[in-house]
């Protein structure tokens, strides 16, 4: 019996033949970093949760619901939308891992909710997330870019902005609570999410750069203009979202600095230069310390900064550099 000739031969993925070493490197990193919310003892935060005011509780639930929406989009639309554009079969496999971890992230917020909140509070927050114009606007801006038929590299730009920028108006709050010794187990869970999103933004940004470098100057300029244009649009929405959420607690300006800092990092993931100057991107040190506990900033040159390290003499065998 004769089949109609298929245009593409289905191929089994061979991880022993790599077109791009970065695929295996990132696959290994993501799989080693795999986690589930059950491993974090969230219930230890119940006494701490009780010390928050009603407004602080509502703010926290809303922020987490906003983050859930972004993770849901990445899980069901964002990462799958990147798969048809994958250059290598290994890239597709990495994207399936990314898609699944986004589902884990989205699921984690519900674990936090069920540990700390009442059903009424949870339902109210999900209703809020569907009605909040700023949250819906950022979701729409990203989803429009992900739509079928769109430019594969523009999709990657949107994906990196979601992973490396849009989450941070939300991530700020658990880092803030953590810096005040509140909800510290919840912060541990959020740090696991932040770690994953950093790999996702890095990897998709890396794939963007591989595509970008193949293009002629005019197309490169078009994409760069698109990226900065989209960043401006998203930044405008994020400002309003931030004001609405954080004005009452008095943290808006601090959050905005954190937005600038993360916008610059998102652009760097794409290989572009920073947009916001250093003077508006110096994040509150307490937030930086909450982000990367036990890792201090080193500035031996100026003698300032928190500390520097001179290695203690380590006896080293030349054939025994077991880093």
């Amino acid at each position: 019996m004769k089949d109609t000739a298929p245009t593409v031969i289905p191929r089994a993925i061979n991880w022993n033949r790599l077109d791009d070493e970065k695929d295996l490197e990132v696959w290994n990193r993501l799989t080693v970093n795999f986690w589930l919310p059950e491993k974090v003892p969230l219930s230890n935060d119940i006494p701490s949760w009780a010390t928050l005011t009603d407004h602080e509780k509502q703010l926290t639930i809303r922020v987490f619901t906003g983050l859930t929406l972004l993770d849901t989009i990445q899980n069901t639309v964002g990462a799958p939308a990147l798969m048809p554009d994958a250059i290598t079969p290994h890239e597709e496999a990495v994207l399936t891992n990314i898609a699944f971890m986004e589902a884990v992230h989205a699921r984690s917020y519900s674990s936090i909710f069920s540990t700390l909140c009442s059903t009424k509070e949870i339902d109210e927050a999900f209703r809020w997330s569907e009605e909040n114009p700023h949250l819906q606007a950022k979701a729409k801006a990203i989803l429009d870019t992900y739509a079928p038929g769109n430019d594969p590299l523009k999709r990657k730009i949107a994906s990196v902005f979601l992973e490396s920028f849009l989450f941070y108006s939300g991530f700020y709050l658990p880092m803030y609570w953590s810096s005040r010794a509140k909800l510290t187990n919840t912060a541990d869970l959020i740090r696991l999410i932040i770690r994953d999103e950093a790999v996702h933004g890095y990897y998709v940004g890396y794939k963007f750069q591989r595509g970008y470098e193949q293009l002629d100057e005019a197309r490169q300029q078009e994409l760069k203009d698109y990226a900065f244009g989209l960043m401006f649009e998203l930044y405008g929405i994020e400002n309003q979202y931030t004001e609405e959420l954080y004005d009452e607690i008095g943290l808006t300006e601090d959050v905005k600095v954190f937005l600038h800092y993360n916008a610059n990092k998102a652009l760097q993931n794409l290989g572009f230069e920073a947009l916001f100057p250093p003077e508006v991107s110096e994040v509150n040190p307490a937030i930086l310390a909450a982000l990367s506990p036990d890792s201090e900033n080193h500035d031996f040159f100026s003698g300032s900064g928190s500390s520097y390290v001179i290695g203690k003499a380590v006896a080293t065998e030349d054939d025994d550099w077991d880093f």
Partner: protein
Amino acid sequence: MAAQPLTLIYYSSASGNTQRFVERLGGEALRIPISPSDPLPEIIRPYVLICPTYADGEGRGAVPKQVIRFLNDPDRRALIKGVIATGNRNFGATYALSGRIIADKCNVPLLYSFELAGTETDISRVRAGLITLGGTLCSTAT
């Protein structure tokens, strides 16, 4: 005492963050190649090493294999004067971990750490710092 002339040695993976930092820094710099089959740069002068971090959640694999290979040679290792580490704070406690490991292993100071491709502030601090240390940058940096 006159400052010793220093070379800048760096590693940058295909994502190119450290490469972009070094380009913006200006001055002469030698790259440790990504491919293990390419020759390592020849070192005749004291140098500062700029190294990214690729740790997993437990801190394993922080120092890139090619940097380990580079430092495994005792002659090359003898000339390292300090390390500058890069990373991403989003990786929490393992941020810029490669610098702490290399500083420890080679008994040299961890001079500075910065994120991704660095900010303007990072560029000016590292530039000034290297010049103070006696870097090669003074002839080319403006």
